[in-house]
């Protein structure tokens, strides 16, 4: 691509900061060391990571599928214990590979309960308002006669977001992250969207949020 090492490395950094894969190109040993350092810095800038719930769930399902076959039926073959010879994966790799997606799950509490959080008139157009529905905290946004709501907890660190009316974003106090009223991340690095919270307007003009008892 571009012959200059600073440009090659910059391209890799820009990809990393957008949450994309490492696409490495040739270079001398020092350039390679720089790339490894860049990957480590990118990996550290948000602190230790946990699996995305979607990925963890898929992995769990795969493990459950693997378990009865390899750990139970073929028990005798496995009593040998922790064989250290790697290879022989024998398994089918999951088809999908994760991209820099913004998965927006919704909060669907078991035994969820609709909670009245105020009259529609009390919600200012375009302004976030923090409400609680039992154990579910949410920011509700009104657009005309419609309302939407997102979780009040950051999608990355478990910190309570605040609404910045001047900026028009939800801000995380724990790290430099902010989100649009729709819950989409408004940062340069990969971040999941906020969870959606179910909200509705009743025929009496009351806003209700699906929360817990």
């Amino acid at each position, binding site marked *: 691509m571009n012959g200059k090492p600073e440009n090659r490395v910059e391209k890799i*950094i820009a990809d990393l900061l957008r949450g994309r894969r490492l696409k490495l190109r040739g270079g001398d040993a020092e350039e390679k060391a720089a790339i490894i350092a860049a990957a480590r810095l990118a990996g550290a800038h948000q602190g230790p990571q*946990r699996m995305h719930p979607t990925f963890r769930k898929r992995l769990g399902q795969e493990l459950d599928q693997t378990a009865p076959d390899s750990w139970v039926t073929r028990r005798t073959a496995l009593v040998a214990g922790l064989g250290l010879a790697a290879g022989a994966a024998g398994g089918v790799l999951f088809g999908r590979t994760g991209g820099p997606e913004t998965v927006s799950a919704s909060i669907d509490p078991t035994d969820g309960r609709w909670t009245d959080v105020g009259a529609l008139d009390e919600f200012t157009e375009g302004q976030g308002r923090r409400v609680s529905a039992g154990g579910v905290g949410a920011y509700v946004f009104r657009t005309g006669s419609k309302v939407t709501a997102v979780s009040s907890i950051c999608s990355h660190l478990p910190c309570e977001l605040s609404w910045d009316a001047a900026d028009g974003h939800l801000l995380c106090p724990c790290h430099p992250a902010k989100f649009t009223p729709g819950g989409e991340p408004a940062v340069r690095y990969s971040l999941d969207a906020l969870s959606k919270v179910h909200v509705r307007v009743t025929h009496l003009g009351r806003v209700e949020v699906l929360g817990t008892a």
Partner: protein
Amino acid sequence: MTPDRPAGEHQEAEVVELPVARRASDVALDELELVYAFIYARVGNRPDAEDLTQQVAMKAIPRLRQGAPASAIRGYLFATARSVLGAFWSTRLGLSEAELRDDLALATPAPPSPADDRTETVQQILSQLSDNYRRVLELRFLHGYSLKEVAAEMNSTVGAIKVMQLRALRAAGKVRPPE
């Protein structure tokens, strides 16, 4: 999940084993969280981290013994993670395992670390760099600034910042992370 079964015949039937296997898979999943964090901290992006964690799971899980203690599962998962990461860097960068020895040596099974441990390590690496090098990496990686923003912040040009960034990373690559 484990129904109370009347004592009697077929005590050793396979039906007994299933809950044990389930428990083992739950343990493995929690251990894979550590593997994921470990891999992410080295490759710096989610798609690669997920792929590699998958590979670790698929290689290691079929070989785990049912009822194995968490510590043994962790040891084996991290051993597999070392091998998978080695293959990753060697494919992507053309580096041999020998060249990667330092990186892989750090891949010893780490106990669950406090939340800020990794960030602290990075700060320690950055603290050994010159002011300008540290600043450019902090702005770029820790604060997510664009090149332009870094240039504006440091009263420099995009071209000069790009070169400084490369030099700073090379310097960072030479710093031995404290362990």
